[in-house]
């Protein structure tokens, strides 16, 4: 069954079609990758799902809820959370506070409850702190919770961003190039971690990735975009042999050469 389902989603910037007539089904508990050359519309598609952009045409359904026109804060409450291509943590908050912000949608305390420090508020805060600590541990950042986010090393920041996204208890997690700028070892760790997220927590993962090793290694389905349109979809093996994909990545004419060589 499809958890996220898009029908003919189109997003234009002026005359440029960033995403055109895109149909994608994301099965529940799958790891689904979106690949494509730079400027193919991958991140724009993410922004359409998470409510940063409103697509001009088409429909996005998540668990049978339409997402088009909803604000980002509504969408995250429905169970979609994301990370960013360039890490976007709250730099002057601690790691702990970053995660606590992620929990925001699940806390209920109001102005007067907070000022009066009612038992319910105190209990909620305590539980939130516990959950944040648990998440820190989960992403291997135990002991670094009191560091300001901007003072953490790069790899830790990436993992903290994922922890923050997990704090909103998503059903679908969108990861925008989670292994960007990582060395092979860190990349392998990240791959294991993503698989772990799906296997242990049952979270569906939609992934934008440039490193083919990662894409081929962990995804069950791969969608290839070029100029905002879907040019291929299938299992990693299917995609690897698809001439259209090779053409998109290497340019016209190379298909012939590749087939000659092979």
């Amino acid at each position, binding site marked *: 069954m499809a958890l996220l389902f898009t029908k003919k989603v189109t997003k234009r910037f002026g005359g440029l079609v960033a995403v055109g007539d895109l149909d994608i089904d994301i099965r529940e508990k799958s790891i689904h990758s979106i690949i494509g050359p730079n400027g193919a519309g991958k991140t724009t598609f993410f922004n359409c799902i998470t409510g940063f952009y409103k697509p001009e045409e088409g429909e996005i359904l998540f668990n049978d809820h339409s997402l088009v026109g909803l604000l980002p804060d509504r969408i*995250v409450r429905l169970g979609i959370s994301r990370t960013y291509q360039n890490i976007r943590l709250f730099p002057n908050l601690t790691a702990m506070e970053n995660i606590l*912000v992620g929990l925001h949608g699940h806390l209920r305390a109001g*102005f007067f409850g907070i*000022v009066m420090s009612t038992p319910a508020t105190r209990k909620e805060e305590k539980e939130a702190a516990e959950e944040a600590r648990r998440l820190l541990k989960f992403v291997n950042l135990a002991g670094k919770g*009191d560091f300001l986010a901007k003072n953490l090393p790069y790899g830790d920041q990436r993992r903290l961003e994922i922890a923050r996204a997990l704090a909103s208890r998503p059903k679908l997690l969108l990861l925008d190039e989670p292994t960007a700028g990582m060395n092979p070892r860190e990349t392998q760790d990240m791959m294991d971690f993503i698989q772990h997220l799906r296997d242990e927590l049952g979270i569906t993962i939609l992934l934008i990735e440039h490193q083919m090793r990662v894409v081929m290694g962990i995804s069950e389905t791969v969608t290839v975009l070029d100029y905002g349109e879907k040019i291929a979809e299938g299992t990693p093996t299917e995609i690897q042999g698809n001439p259209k994909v090779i053409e998109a990545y290497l340019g016209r004419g190379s298909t012939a050469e590749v087939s000659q060589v092979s």
Partner: protein
Amino acid sequence: MKQAIKIGLIGGVVEILLSLIGMVEAFSQRDIIAHVISMGHTLLIIVALFMGYLAAKRTPGKGSLWVLANSFLSGLIVGGLVSLLVIVGSLIDLRKVFVNAMPVLYELLTFKQGTQIGVFLLLGAGALSGVLAGLFFLSPKLLRRVLLISLGSVVGAGVLQDLLRPTFSLWGPLAIINEWLFTANGLTIQGAIGLFVLIAALLLFWSRKGSVIQTGFRQLPPAPQRILKMSGILILVFILLILPQVLGLFLSEVFTIVGLYVLLGLGLNIVVGYAGLLDLGYVAFFAIGSYTTAVLTSPELGFFSLSFWEALPFVIVMGVFSGVLLGTPVLKMRGDYLAIATLGFGEIIRILVLSDFLRPWLGGAQGIGKIPKASIAGFEFAGPQQIYYLILAGCLLVIFISLRLRDSRLGRAWMAMREDEDVAQAMGINLVATKLLAFATGAGFSALSGAIFATKLSSVYPHSFNVMISINIVCVIIVGGMGSIPGVIVGAAALVGLPELLREFAEYRLFVYGAALVAMMLLRPEGLWPEAVHRREFHEEEEKEAESKSSLELKSG
């Protein structure tokens, strides 16, 4: 070398500027140490020392001879530029352009020795300051700390003599200190030396034994620790309560003004410091609070004549409501645009209350008078010494609310919004509700402050609510430290309290604000007392400790 010359030139220009705008002269009327050194000279020397220190610090390689040479050079240049001013001044009459370039200025600059000797004295003084600053830079850390704090205390005691002298004289036995420490103008020589030695000795003692005492304190079982802390808080509360009786009328008045700014600053701190919404029209809510109080309580208008306490809830509600009203149209604005729009709102309110159109209701330019004083069970908050308590209570309440909010879901939502609005929204934060709540909370605090202001003066006039108030409050927050509660108190004390105490200051208030802002941005962008990083992962206990500490600090401010 190049650096040293540059720094020296900057220092020289600063000193010339300070001289020509008349600041040196105005400050010279007050002696730090009687007949030895005046505040004007101190100002010049501090600039020269600071430039020498900067030159020393910027020396590449850090060879101590080079350091000294550089600081010497920059000091010499500072002295040289000032002597240039003296020479030019003696040849040409600068008074046509610079009104303050009077003969008495040159006398001050040349130490009353005439131009020729004065020039050499100036060069010497500059070079000496530079070398001293260089030596200071090279000396060990402990010595630097001791020197800095002890000298600072001596200068501070001199600057604040008007505050300290009457305080001591009110307490019988302490009046002896007065005779020993102060003359009619400035510290006595033995007093200055004595104070320096005393502070230095205390600091040295603390550096030796301080850690022992601290660990000793930590090793105590929790119960006595808590008792010690509680008694510390009690002593502070006691001091705060008797303060107006100790300080007398004038200083209580100063404290009430600082207190009002603390209230305003804490309100704006929520909007600017926490939520990152630069609001330059904050005075509007202050005005709305004052005018609502006036309309509801003053018999002069004859609509209502509620008591202060009956009116207060309406005032707060009115403030909150106007906060939402301003917030709604500017929801989509960020940064500079928001600042301009809110600036406009502040002016609109001022012009409205000034207008003839609303005169029957708001009194127009004549304002509204006969606002009754607040009273509880027969105790009337009449003079500054009584209103002090009203303001103290207000400050404590607002600090309490601010602290609670800061460590909550809402405080985190504000700070997340400040850091990155889009991501905050994508984390489930409803931007509309969160922004409006920040505006409303800030406006509510401001309205409370306005209500107290109205009963303090017994009258309200439109001209009390000009844009300068908004600017002052923003300055208080920036200088104190964005988002920091003790910072607001320190900032208000420094930017509002000091000018009230230093009559020489008044004319140069704006100049000093500007200089303070620039200096803060360059040297300490996080503010005088920056917001501490909240430890949440391990240190639940210490966090509470920090809270109680910060509530102590506010009292000492």
